């Protein structure tokens, strides 16, 4: 299941290179020596003078060893080095985001399901609709204006104060956290709407089941019924949805990292696109999507751990 998809990822990425009308090297254009050198390098890297299948196999062979060539930037560093430097930042941000989203969305979802049509439920429904419709880049800019410009409470971009090294230890920690507040806040906002919605839906379905009725009938405390019997079952679909929404979350880091100048994969991607740094773009695309696939796989495995029923007879995602 995973291996064909992995090969598929490389194939689609390879097709992307050939989307360019004519020859991707034409887009670089210009005839100063640096660019001519880039063009030559690109030709060699992708074997553009050879037939398609030879090109693809050659490229695949190198990608299998994570060799994406060198960046076109003046520094000319290997693509893999650049990615290795940026990846932890994006992973850390996404991990924190996901934790916060789940920590807030699950209680909200449970409460609005157990108190369906209450004022709380209505307010969260409103929040969900607005959250779905709010462009994250706009929210980010507004928060920058409010907290960065007008109130001056939080730094507007980057991960660290330029004087970071000279700060005392505790100030360093605070500096780091304060730089994270806005980006994490923005990235969490959109996901929060979705997840609290799914959690509510899932909980509503579970509450109607017979075994919840029987748990109540045998005189269990309502808190125990909800917190133990219902919650466990309602959480299971969330694991799948978590896997499915991962590409969305990671894709969102493009916007957030660009606005807040956070040196992660998203910002690297945008910078490379502007610089037409093709080796970095391709390496980025392959690595990010392979990692997403891996994370999906983990979610799938987790799901079969949580719910033994699906270990039998479940072939892939529907």
């Amino acid at each position, binding site marked *: 299941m995973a291996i064909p998809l992995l090969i598929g990822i490389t194939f689609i990425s390879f097709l992307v290179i050939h989307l360019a009308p004519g020859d991707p090297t034409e887009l670089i254009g210009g005839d100063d020596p640096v660019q001519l050198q880039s063009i030559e390098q690109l030709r060699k890297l992708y074997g553009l003078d050879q037939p398609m299948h030879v090109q693809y196999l050659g490229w695949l062979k190198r990608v299998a060893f994570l060799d994406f060539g060198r960046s076109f930037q003046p520094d000319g560093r290997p693509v893999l080095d650049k990615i290795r430097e940026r990846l932890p930042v994006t992973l850390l941000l996404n991990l924190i985001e996901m934790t916060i989203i789940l920590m807030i969305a699950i209680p909200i979802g449970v409460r609005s399901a157990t108190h369906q049509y209450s004022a709380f439920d209505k307010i969260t429904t409103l929040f969900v609709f607005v959250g779905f419709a709010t462009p994250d880049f706009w929210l980010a800019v507004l928060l920058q204006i409010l907290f960065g410009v007008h109130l001056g409470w939080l730094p507007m971009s980057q991960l660290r104060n330029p004087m970071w090294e000279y700060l005392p230890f505790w100030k360093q920690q605070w500096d780091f956290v304060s730089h994270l507040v806005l980006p994490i806040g923005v990235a969490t906002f959109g996901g929060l709407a979705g997840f609290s919605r799914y959690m509510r839906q899932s909980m509503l379905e579970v509450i109607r089941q017979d075994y919840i009725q029987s748990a109540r009938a045998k005189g269990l405390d309502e808190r125990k019924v909800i917190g133990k019997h219902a919650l466990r079952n309602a959480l299971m679909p969330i694991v799948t949805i978590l896997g499915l929404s991962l590409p969305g979350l990671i894709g969102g880091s493009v916007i957030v990292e660009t606005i807040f100048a956070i040196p992660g994969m998203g910002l690297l991607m945008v910078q490379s696109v502007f610089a037409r740094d093709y080796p970095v773009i391709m390496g980025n*695309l392959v690595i990010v999507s392979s990692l997403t696939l891996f994370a999906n796989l983990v979610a799938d495995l987790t799901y079969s751990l949580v719910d033994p029923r699906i270990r039998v007879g479940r072939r892939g995602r529907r």
Partner: protein
Amino acid sequence: MKAFWRAFRRNKLALIGGVVVACLFVVAIAAPWLAPWDPHRPDIKRILEPPSRAHWLGTDQIGRDVLSRMLYGSRVSLAVGFVSVGIATAIGILLGAAAGYHGGWVDGSVMRLVDLMLVFPRFFLLLAVLAFLKPSIWTIMAVIGLTGWMGVARLVRAEFLALKEREFVLWSQSIGASATRIIWRHILPNALGPVLVAMTLGIPAAILTESGLSFLGLGVRPPYATWGNILNEGRDAIELAWWQSLYPGLAILVTVLSYNLLGEGIRDALDPRLRQSVGRFGGRGR
């Protein structure tokens, strides 16, 4: 149809959404008559003016009227929304119908392709593709459409799987109707409801994606005004001119919200059970 209207009318939020969407259409068409200023004409004497009676939503760095630019921008958003969702729907229907009707290896390969496309974080894929193409509004529409058909394909496939066992289909098969005819004339018309809902929810998603790309400076380029690139230009004046950032985003929010309310309203009125299949992951750009 009557039952649909009765159910739809009762949903006040959906009605409001529908009215706003209709208004947006009027605004987009009538932009040249509604706009108080020329959206492209700079005015060096009126740079970064806050909202006033002359310029309701203020002016930008080179003195262009923000309101007029937003009115023209609504045309781009609408066009991109419709065309890219049209492309996505066409691809989705073709692949979904083939997969659902024929089953077997056709179904297998289409579904694997869907799985594959869904693994790519959309913004990374979009950016990679855009890096290789010459930027234009048509490119944006095509690229958003080509990366957004998977939901429709799954949906149409599911509808086809359910419908192809029904009597009217079996009957046409028994009198020797061709597969093409059965797919287009018999099954597809019955599957259009959910597709319509998916389209209504797809348009705001496409609008969000387009404005996100334009915001990054990789979507629709100036001098065309779009909500996304007004916001992009607004970032340079972020410390001076909040109005250049606030209003275009608000326009996006209201538009997306209205389409979502309308789409969910249509869905609930058509068949509340659809809630399960349509739009669970819709409504958001990436």
